[in-house]
């Protein structure tokens, strides 16, 4: 029987939505999952995953049509002709920003969202991160501490499978890891150099959501490094391959693609959210759906858009926005690095395309205080041997040239920092006062910039990258250009409905529920009260699982 009434509604089916769907359905809740884009089924809808470059007209390079339709998305490392169907069209999904504050919004509007496309690095926040706002006064104090979330990190890691190595660091807590991937010959050398030259600094292998051994019927990873096309071995975590199938298996999930949430319905008398207004993306018809609890997991910017667009007598400026902070404190991770040539190691090579790199956890402001900036940064990177494409920069042609570039070239080592961005009130997203999208929803106007602390971190990230490569004896060191970073490039947008202890200065409480609307939970990157410098997806998943379990408990007690 067709019904519009459910126990729970989950808005979004990506990293967070998939976890909400799994947890709620496994606890027996009849759950409607709304996805604004098309349905993507595991394996069946990975049309390019076994294709070789020569099977594409321009060998995976972008056609003129693609370059035009995805003029913003095309700048991402993971965007090519083999992955373009998983990115949102810039033509169909416009947004705006002030001319002097460029913003690159990288987005995926289909089942699975960006969980199909992510780089899969999975790091825990530490007690240092949860205490940071309270200690240095930037942002509001997190209403949780590491011990609150640690069991949920365990739970998520055990379920999704994360490969990595425990290092016993207080700034990067250990986890429940599958066997780590290996360093290559030059990375091993770099690791030793860091250990010898920089007291207390550690290099570890990337902690990544790949199953390096068979895990819960998935994998193991075949080291093709084709992840963003979807993995036929189910070897990396995506909601499409892991959490949504688990939710579907309960029989409690109703999945509805092409469902754009216009707004959340607020009942003034009950003081609760009672449902959502959905526009069918294809027919543009509006339907209302109702539930006891609502999980908003549309990803940071769309979640802000939905909340700001959900106005009522109680909330003229957006649902749950009595504090006036909704849409504010938008953060991202910014990056700069350096690369170098590495002499020697001529008889060293690797076998397999490792979908992972190295990680150097934060080392600033851990035990001592840096004079120039608060918070810190970590590095990711890798060493590799140059391939045939070096020939485009070399002199020569003919038989010997061909022979030479068919063989592995010199080694290079590159590292790039990920810096922590502080939460600023005036880094914000708003509804555009005039322009609406084709479904009649105001588009987003995004206004963000890096400030003094970020610029100082940027400089330190660049200088320190050069210093570490120099100490290792590498040559021709080329630092990156800090101006290459555009806000949004980190694809870690977060913080627009931050959690906090005080309803006057934050949107969400410690359970990811709105202070103002107890049955509305927001568990994508929106809730982040600070950004840390770690890749955040694992944290979104852990908080989502925790919030979902809390919501079910409260429902059972009759409180929601």
């Amino acid at each position: 029987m067709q019904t519009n009434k459910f126990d729970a509604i989950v808005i979004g089916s990506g990293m967070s939505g998939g976890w909400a769907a799994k947890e709620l359905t496994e606890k027996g809740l009849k759950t409607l999952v709304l996805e604004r884009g098309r349905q993507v089924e595991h394996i069946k809808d990975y049309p390019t995953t076994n294709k070789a470059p020569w099977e594409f007209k321009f060998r995976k390079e972008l056609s003129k049509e693609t370059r035009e339709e995805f003029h913003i998305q095309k700048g991402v490392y993971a965007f090519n002709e083999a992955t373009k169907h998983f990115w949102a069209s810039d033509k169909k999904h416009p947004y705006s920003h002030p001319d002097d504050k460029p913003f690159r919004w990288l987005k995926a509007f289909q089942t699975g969202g960006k969980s199909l496309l992510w780089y899969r690095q999975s790091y825990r926040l530490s007690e240092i991160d949860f205490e940071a706002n309270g200690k240095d006064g930037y942002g509001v104090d997190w209403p949780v501490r590491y011990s609150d979330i640690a069991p949920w990190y365990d739970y998520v890691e055990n379920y999704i499978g994360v490969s990595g190595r425990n290092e016993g660091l207080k700034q990067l807590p250990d986890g429940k890891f599958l066997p780590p991937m290996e360093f290559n010959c030059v990375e091993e050398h770099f690791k030793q150099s860091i250990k010898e030259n920089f007291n207390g600094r550690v290099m570890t292998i990337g902690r990544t959501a790949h199953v390096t051994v068979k895990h819960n019927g998935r994998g193991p990873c075949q080291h093709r490094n084709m992840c963003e096309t979807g993995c036929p071995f189910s070897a990396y975590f995506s909601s499409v391959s892991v959490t949504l199938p688990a939710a579907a298996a309960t029989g409690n999930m109703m999945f509805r693609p092409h469902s754009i949430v216009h707004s959340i319905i607020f009942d003034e008398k009950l003081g609760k959210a009672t449902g959502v207004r959905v526009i069918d993306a294809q027919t543009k018809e509006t339907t209302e759906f109702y539930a006891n609890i609502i999980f908003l997991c549309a990803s940071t910017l769309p979640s802000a858009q939905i909340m700001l667009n959900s106005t009522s007598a109680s909330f003229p400026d957006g649902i749950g926005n009595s504090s006036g902070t909704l849409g504010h404190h938008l953060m991202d991770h910014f990056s700069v690095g350096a690369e170098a040539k590495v002499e020697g190691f001529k008889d060293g090579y690797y076998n397999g395309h490792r979908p992972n790199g190295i990680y150097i956890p934060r080392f600033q402001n851990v035990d001592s205080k840096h004079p120039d900036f608060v918070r810190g940064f970590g590095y990711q990177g890798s060493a590799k041997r140059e391939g045939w494409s070096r020939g485009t920069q070399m002199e020569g042609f003919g038989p010997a040239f061909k022979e030479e570039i068919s063989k592995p070239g010199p080694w290079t080592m590159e590292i790039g920092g990920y810096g922590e961005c502080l939460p600023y009130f005036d880094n914000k997203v708003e509804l555009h006062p005039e322009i609406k999208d084709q479904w009649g929803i105001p588009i987003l106007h995004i206004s963000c910039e890096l400030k003094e602390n970020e610029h100082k971190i940027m400089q330190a990230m660049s200088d320190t990258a050069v210093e570490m490569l120099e100490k290792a004896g590498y040559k021709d060191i080329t630092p990156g250009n800090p101006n290459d970073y555009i806000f949004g490039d980190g694809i870690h947008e977060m913080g627009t409905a931050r959690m906090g202890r005080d309803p006057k200065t934050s949107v969400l409480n410690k359970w990811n529920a709105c202070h103002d609307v107890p049955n509305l939970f927001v568990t994508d990157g929106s809730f982040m009260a600070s950004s840390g410098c770690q890749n955040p997806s694992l944290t979104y998943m852990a908080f989502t699982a925790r919030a979902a379990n809390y919501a079910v408990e409260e429902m059972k007690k009759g409180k929601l």
Partner: protein
Amino acid sequence: MNRRELIKRSAIAAVGVGVLPNLFMLLESCGPERLTDYQPIYLSVEQFDTVWEIAELVLPKTDSPGANDVGVAPYIDLLFAEFFEEKDKTKYESGLKLFMANCKERFGNSFVDLDETSKITFLQDLDKEEIDESFFKSIKRFILWGYFTSEQGMKSMNYSPVPGQYEGCITIDDQEKNLVGNR
């Protein structure tokens, strides 16, 4: 295109500039027969044949296939027809025209009609030029791209689409080829 068509085309070209040479001279001047009967979709036949010759000189057939065994020149023709942005297309096309004109000026003959030594001399001189975006550097880039992303080109190296295991540090000898996959 067969030899007769080639002659006809050359004759028309000659008429176009107001000279009607006798058949013997015509045969002398047009040099060897085209090495391919591929009809270009964007480039002129002369331009295409020039690209064809350059491609084979940059990546000749050795114990692995040559550029023209794997269709590099038609690929570059396709790039001109459909891939390049207008302004790049203009740049590369005028680069190609200048290449052909300079060759004629220096050797008194079309590039395709030069002997092997002259062809190589001409390319070597261009290759040494310290110009960032020279025509030869660009065309070399497209030749390498077309070759090493073709099926035979990739399979001439250590093509490993599904490696299975990852081994971080192995020892190789100097015969080892580039490891490539489908990414």
